[in-house]
């Protein structure tokens, strides 16, 4: 590979704008068509070996960003690059490599597995697709993968409906590993599970990442999960990255008021509930001028409603999009 020095993923001012009808009248040219900016000027770099957490509440644009990264959704503006090439217009051989190198773990693991295929067929599919093993070795390879994710090789003959939620997630992980990817993209891969199952999976993912040198892009709403798995973090709010940097430092001393609010809102043993933010994430349709967090920000100043802050490097390795960051 000649592109080893290039970052794996690079997003340059990616925007995703949906145009929506303002009801029946707008189709007749009466009334205005409105815009929904799901992503607005996203800049993100993921290098080989990085583990990056994308954190934000629902409606923050995490999932749209993921779809752009995977080439499932075309961006409206800006460029999304994989090893220097535009993801949307990859040449055939590069697309094939992309499909093998980038593996996805869905939030709805059960939904991402065809219920009519056995575990053997499910995990074997990427192996066969990319010609990674002979037909005769298939069962052995699947057994190895199953063992790798902490499941018994006998599971190969079962169907997803016969597995528990935690087991299904393990199968989804094994399937993602099958194509020997460089990057694992995981969308809320441990949410909605029991704490014990979640902890088991987190340990599994961390082990895989360390042992196999995987690059990890992990979408989560849970800051603690982000800090357990990822060395870097990007916090999103309403289609923008508001803060990015090394996870430990960002969580120790958040610079954006939103990051701090998220941090304080996560439950902590024996501390009173901290209701840190009022109201809810506003609708991304026709946003007002100024900082988009201004409507909920506890530290809002007059200029916040006029000037929109851009993501700027404030200190070594710390990017913040705030006019009045919380640096001491």
């Amino acid at each position: 590979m000649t592109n080893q020095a290039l970052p794996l993923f690079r997003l340059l001012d990616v925007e995703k704008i949906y145009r929506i009808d303002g009801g029946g009248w707008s189709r007749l040219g009466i009334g205005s068509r409105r815009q929904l900016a799901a992503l607005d000027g996203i800049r993100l770099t993921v290098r080989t070996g990085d583990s990056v957490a994308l954190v934000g509440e629902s409606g923050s644009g995490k999932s749209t960003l993921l779809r752009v990264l995977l080439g499932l959704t075309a961006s409206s503006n800006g460029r999304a690059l994989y090893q220097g090439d535009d993801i949307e217009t990859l040449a055939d051989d590069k697309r094939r490599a992309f499909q093998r190198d980038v593996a996805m773990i869905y939030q709805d693991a059960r939904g991402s597995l065809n219920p009519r295929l056995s575990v053997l067929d499910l995990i074997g599919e990427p192996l066969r697709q990319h010609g990674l093993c002979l037909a005769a070795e298939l069962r052995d390879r699947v057994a190895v993968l199953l063992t790798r994710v902490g499941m018994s090789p006998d599971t190969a003959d079962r169907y997803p409906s016969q597995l528990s939620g935690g087991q299904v997630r393990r199968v989804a992980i094994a399937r993602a590993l099958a194509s020997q990817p460089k990057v694992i993209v995981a969308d809320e891969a441990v949410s909605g599970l029991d704490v014990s199952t979640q902890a088991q999976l987190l340990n599994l993912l961390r082990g895989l990442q360390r042992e196999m040198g995987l690059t990890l892009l992990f979408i989560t709403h849970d800051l603690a999960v982000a800090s357990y798995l990822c060395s870097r973090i990007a916090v999103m709010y309403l289609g923008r990255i508001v803060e990015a940097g090394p996870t430990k430092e960002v969580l120790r001393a958040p610079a954006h008021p939103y990051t701090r609010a998220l941090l304080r809102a996560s439950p902590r043993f024996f501390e009173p509930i901290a209701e840190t933010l009022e109201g809810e994430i506003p609708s991304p349709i026709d946003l007002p001028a100024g900082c988009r967090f201004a409507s909920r920000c506890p530290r809002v100043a007059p200029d916040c409603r006029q000037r929109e802050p851009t993501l700027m490097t404030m200190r070594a390795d710390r990017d913040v999009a705030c006019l009045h960051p919380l640096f001491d």
Partner: protein
Amino acid sequence: MVAPDLLQRGEASTRSGSALLRDLVRACLYQLRARPFFGVAAFIAVAFLLAAVFAPWVAPFEPTFQDANHLMAPPNAVHWFGTDSFGQDLLSRVIYGARYAFLIGFCSVAIGAMGGLAIGLAAGLRGGAVEWSLMRFVDAILALPSLIMAIAFISILGQGVDKVIYAVGFAMIGPFARTVRADVLQVRTRTFVEAAGLMGVDRLRIVWRHILPNVIFPLAVQATIRISEAILVSSGLSFLGLGVVPPTPDWGLMISEGRAFISFVPWISGVPGAALALLLIALSIVGDGIREQFDPKMRANR
């Protein structure tokens, strides 16, 4: 109320190959236990089927054998269900008639399901103009009741058992195509299809491995339910004199033949009529039971 152990099996039913048959048998066994009515209906349907298959051994006479000494005889020891105006034994004709009923029912449903699958798949997968024109074609078929459609086809194809099969089969393509397209559209948006695409699985393979199996199963359930409809339509055709030609022992034809004597020899029409009614009711109860077991919409309380 569906028993939880079966709920699990119901879930497992979303599988392929021989598992499908096994689940079907399991479902029947469960229905048998849960509702005695289903048992009676299944027994009747199976009895008809066996009689049809083994007709030459079961029937006391040849279906076209004319007993000149017993014209229009009432039920008696020799002719259990009596004879018709040609002296043909009604029981034997009803038994042989079941052959035609099942033959026409199965074959025409197979044609309808195949045609519906092709059109539905094409429409659901291609989308756009292809979908639009195919679905308008289907709408046109559906605009007329299946009996009228079948009459139209018969008038083009001519009479005979094979022609009836084609006619009824074509008339059934419409409803099958609709359900297949709806299922394809729904399955296409499922996450596992997107996931396969992300892995680089090519389109044809996705259709074959991921979409088709999830469409075939509801189609098979549909087909079991529609067999009774096909039998009814084919009998209707024969009754109207448009279907099979005499002396073929077809129930519709037999009912039609007895019509002239209905006031004083009621059994000529009555016996095939009762056979038809009994089989259709039995088949719909069996079909409902199977659907209840497998239709995901009716399994919502899982």
